[in-house]
């Protein structure tokens, strides 16, 4: 069946000459009427946009831009990254939810995509059902870092110390309702302790206060902490993933320290609008897998992220688990956005 495309738009060609553009402008209407999509079950001609719900320059944006080139090559479409910041990711997410389910509009989501809906009682959409899942792209375990002046070396000692000095220990996070915050509250709940949350705006300033010894604990990416661990200016008590990390195989996980349910993993994943045909999802997923070459995986690993494209069903499964975990903790400690 031949259906006319609803969004007829001419994107400027990357290297078109001035004349070409002037003529495009002059004959725009002609080309508009002749542009048609052939079939529903493959991505229509034209660029595929990866929507990032953050302003340019953040780690999610940069990862999307890292994948942009290889993904475009594997998919055979030009790929653009569009930043749609605002509403703590609601604006960008809503944009994708309302887009045509033809594979041309994707969302590069993070933990926040799911957290928003759970934390905020924001029920305009549910990322589990109102979006199709293309695949998780990158994951990262966090580390529980402590300033040496606190005098603890393990999770057990931290718990003991916190119980002996209630209200005295604090933890810094990159922001209210961030994964770092949730991870800290999950530790509070799991170990039945009460360490005070001190939110910052971004991991950088929080880390500075941790290094300076104003903050006691921070659960954060271990990226860039290497020097501080080596010199003893910071201590790594545990990592937060379900398994130990490749970078610190000798450091136990929080789960190993006696809280088997505990897991806090940061991830970035591709979503598409609801009811995107399965063939298109598969096409996108296989292009992503193709794009994640060993070389790229290795390069990305340097930034602390493990690049590994999961299958769509693995992503759905993973999100369901995450949602349950978050819901439980939020019910228990009552964080709100």
């Amino acid at each position: 069946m031949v259906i006319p495309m609803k969004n007829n738009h001419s994107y400027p060609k990357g290297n078109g000459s001035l004349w070409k553009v002037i003529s495009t402008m002059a004959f725009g209407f002609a080309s508009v009427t002749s542009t048609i999509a052939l079939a529903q079950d493959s991505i229509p001609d034209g660029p595929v946009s990866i929507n990032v719900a953050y302003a340019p320059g953040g780690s999610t944006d940069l990862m999307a831009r890292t994948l942009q080139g290889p993904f475009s090559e594997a998919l055979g479409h030009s790929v653009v990254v569009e930043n749609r910041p605002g509403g703590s990711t609601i604006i960008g997410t809503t944009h994708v939810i309302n887009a045509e389910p033809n594979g041309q509009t994707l969302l590069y989501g993070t933990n926040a995509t799911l957290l928003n809906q759970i934390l905020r009682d924001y029920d305009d959409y549910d990322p589990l059902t109102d979006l199709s899942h293309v695949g998780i792209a990158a994951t990262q375990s966090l580390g529980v870092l402590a300033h040496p002046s606190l005098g603890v070396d393990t999770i057990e000692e931290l718990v003991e110390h916190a119980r002996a000095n209630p209200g005295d220990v604090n933890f810094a996070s990159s922001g209210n309702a961030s994964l770092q915050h949730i991870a800290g509250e999950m530790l509070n709940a799991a170990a039945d302790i009460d360490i005070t949350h001190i939110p910052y705006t971004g991991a950088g300033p929080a880390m500075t206060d941790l290094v300076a010894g104003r903050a006691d604990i921070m659960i954060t990416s271990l990226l860039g902490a290497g020097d501080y661990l080596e010199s003893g200016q910071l201590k790594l008590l545990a990592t937060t993933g379900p398994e130990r990390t490749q970078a610190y195989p000798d450091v136990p996980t929080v789960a190993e320290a006696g809280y088997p349910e505990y897991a806090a993993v940061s991830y970035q994943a591709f979503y598409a609008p609801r009811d995107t045909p399965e063939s298109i999802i598969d096409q996108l997923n296989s292009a992503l897998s193709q794009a994640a070459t060993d070389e790229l995986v290795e390069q990305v690993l340097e930034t602390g992220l493990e690049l590994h494209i999961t299958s769509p069903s693995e992503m759905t499964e993973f999100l369901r688990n995450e949602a349950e975990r978050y819901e439980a903790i939020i019910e228990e400690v009552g964080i709100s956005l």
Partner: protein
Amino acid sequence: MEFFSILGDNVALGLATALTPEHLFYCALGVFLGTLAGVIPGIGTLAAMSLLFPLTFYLSPTAALVMLAGIYYGTTYGGSTTSILLNLPGTPSAAVACIDGHPMASQGRAGVALLITTIASFVGATVGILLMMLFSPMIVSVALQFGPTEYFSLMALGLIVAATMSNESPLKGLAMILVGIIVGLVGLDIYTGAGRFTFSSPTLYDGISIVALAMGLFGVSQIIGSIRSAESKVSNIQKITIRSMLPTLTECRQSVKPLFRGAGIGSFFGALPGSGGTIASFVAYATEKKISKTPERFGHGAIEGLASPESANNAADQTAFIPTMALGIPGTASMAMMLGVLMIHGISPGPSLMSNSPDLFWGLIMSFWIGNLLLLLINIPMIGLWVNLLRTPYQYLYPGILMFICLGTYSVSNSTIDLWLVILFGLAGYALLRLNFTLPPLLLGFVLGPLMEENFRRAMLYSRGDLSTFVTHPISGSFLGLAVAILATSFYLSARRKRLKEAPAP
């Protein structure tokens, strides 16, 4: 002596790294693109860097950093150009350049203004770079002393200084700061996530975009006010010759000291992670006005009011690298991106960066200097071109300015919400201008107000509600003392001026 020979070796190593054709090319490219991004309002440092980020995969880490750093300080420089020519600041520090830069341009001295900006950026950057080379470790240890308590007091000081910088009464300046703070508070509270002035609309959750605020407040209000007045007067912009670009001897003499004072102020504030550059340019401006024998010239094209803050914000740009490079902890998003580039290439940032990759560190520092030299070389010939733009009759020019406002604002978030805010702030700015209020303090309040609240609340969490923490911390205490002193003097002076004015009339 040994210290200097090591330093000499390092400089030589840095120059050898920075002067390879590859690095020179990427330095020039970065500086050029940065200037362009800066000149176009709305396209900020981050957006420009983010767009070029994928390219950095194919470059050596040094080349990538040199290019991104070029964009970073190039944008600061370019931003002043638009401020001076069109009164369109994209950042708070560029708003300071509007105060005296734009009046200079209106008086036909745009060439002088642009030239002094170029020189100021070079002087400021050079001083910043020298301090960075000589005192990095010391500066870092000072920066680590700055916790929430100190930041709060620093920001209070910055706001007080800005309030007292207008020619009108300090009361009106203070009022503008408070309005700015209120606008800045729109969004989700960072401690509890409660929506403040968001009226349950997700579009306001992340607060009001500074680009929309600055474009409306300065750009649109200025256009509305200028269309008729520009049509009724004959263009007074003279033909551009080398002569008319050169400052007079008096102007040169007037600028030398402010250039270095600004550089000093900028270097200090820049090294504090966060909004150092913004505070630096406002403080530099206020300082010049305070110590000037003719403060009434400020706001009407005083060259010191342009030279000092320009020098300050470029110096701050350079010293902002100190905590980032030496601690490996990014203070701002732009810095985070630069560290990201390092990490992609397998270089872990952190205190050992300097000893582990000296060629990269010193190459980068030397490239800063070469980049600033390139800025000078690229931009001096451009000044004539820019000034010619002003000779275009205003009725042909203003639709274009409006287009840049629209597209610059739109491109930030790919949505039209910010455009409606531009309209709102444009009208508000126009009304405030007509009612004789000074607008730059509003922008500073917008930036610093929320930070001040954030740090106040954090300080209270750390001190467990003990307010005396602000006085008992020595750094914080002295900032607050200074702020009180400045406020008291300015009210005293303003009251005395009023009495003197009213005295002759019985």
